[in-house]
């Protein structure tokens, strides 16, 4: 029987190893799997490469993971946010590496990683510093840059509802990077607001088919990251 539901977030992140590449869903706080990230802090894996659009806010979630010195390198499109303090400080000290990628190229590289496409051409970043050192090629008179797929050992993803097969639906703009990150990881680890019985999600509206998901943990009342930041909470609490 297929049952991808695990008991708690500690079980969910078990087996994440030092040096792993981890994709983390979310655009700002929307879709950020705060509880899974906190479990990864408790778990303690280090020297991680993290692929995520931002670098977290305040001292919780992704920012706390970085602050706990578990991240060697960030691959992202926008490492600043209104309340980002941790990443800028480490970056200026030279204590964390940054690979800056245009947001659409980041999304497409992740999608390619999940789809078995090793590389593709895109018009974004041509003639800019972000294309320096990258191969370019002309198609129909226009110049494109070659971008390579990104894959991860694990993805940490937040969704709205899940079933035991790992079928997922998301909530509004919290969907963002979740679906493509599930496809691009050896093991996609998902926190769901609600685990529902098999068959409760209409096959027509499944956003992430279960084949892309390794483990699901129910987190009924996930943290509202911006509230934690406003209260200046820090993880570990």
């Amino acid at each position, binding site marked *: *029987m*297929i049952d991808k539901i695990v008991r708690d977030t500690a079980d969910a992140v078990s087996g994440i190893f030092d040096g792993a590449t981890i994709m983390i869903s979310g655009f700002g706080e929307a879709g950020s799997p705060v509880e899974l990230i906190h479990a990864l802090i408790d778990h303690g894996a280090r020297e991680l490469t993290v692929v995520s659009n931002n670098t977290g806010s305040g001292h919780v979630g992704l920012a706390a993971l970085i602050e706990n010195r578990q991240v060697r390198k960030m691959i992202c499109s926008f490492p600043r946010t209104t309340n980002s303090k941790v990443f800028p400080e480490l970056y200026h000290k030279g204590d964390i590496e940054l690979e800056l990628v245009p947001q659409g190229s980041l999304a497409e590289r992740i*999608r390619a*990683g*999940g*789809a*078995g*496409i090793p590389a593709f051409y895109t018009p974004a970043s041509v003639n800019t510093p972000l294309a320096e050192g990258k191969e370019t090629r002309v198609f129909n008179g226009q110049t494109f840059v070659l971008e390579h797929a990104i894959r991860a050992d694990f993805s940490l993803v937040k969704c709205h509802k899940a*079933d*035991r*097969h790992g*079928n997922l639906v998301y909530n509004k703009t919290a969907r963002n990077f979740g679906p493509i990150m599930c*496809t691009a990881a050896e093991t996609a680890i998902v926190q769901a607001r609600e685990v529902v019985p*098999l*068959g409760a999600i209409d*096959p*027509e509206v*499944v956003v992430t*088919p*279960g*084949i*892309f998901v390794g483990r699901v943990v129910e987190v009924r009342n996930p943290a509202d990251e911006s509230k934690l930041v406003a209260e200046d909470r820090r993880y570990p609490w």
Partner: protein
Amino acid sequence: MVNGDNKTGWDVQQMAQKVAMDIPDGAYVNLGIGIPEMVSGLVPEGREVIYHTENGLLGMGPVPPTGAEDPELINAGKKCVTAIPGASYFHHADSFTMIRGRHIDICVLGALQVSETGDLANWSTGEPSAIPAVGGAMDLVAGVKTIYVISKYLTKTGAPKIVKQCTYPLTGKGVVDRIYTDLAVLDVTVRGLQVRELAPGISFEYLQQNTEAKLIR
């Protein structure tokens, strides 16, 4: 030309059963058109196997009862099927993300020829009069983790289908992992085709006499 009589071998049902026995609980499986489709009905009790059909369904169920067919719910062979609880529908690019991205565990395909190094030819005899049609076979062999072939050991005219080198146009090179035939089950290994199991009454020598491919006991 050799004796193609295979009364002593397994019938198609038994071949499909052997494949079904080798599909573990929880596997994601794509079944090719024809004989491979039989496998889905033969999964041992207690195993949950999820069938993918490349035209956009994960969680394909059995053929519906007569009268309950929906022409918009079909499999890759364009036959009416059903969807199990936990199924999902998706478009073709997402479907081949599953295939090309190595998310499908096992694909079971038919064959015209299989070589001793696991090359597969199953889409064209290369005859100029034939209309070439490839479908999803090339994507499947390039992307699915394990490729099983299910096929008679010999053609209807008694010619070998297990060959040293394919003479028909390839579907993929070095892609086949295991071959289920009516006479034996063979594993593709770096040293040659390892005979995993012989059908009742079939000798290793008989198998070897009917192919130029290198067989290993």
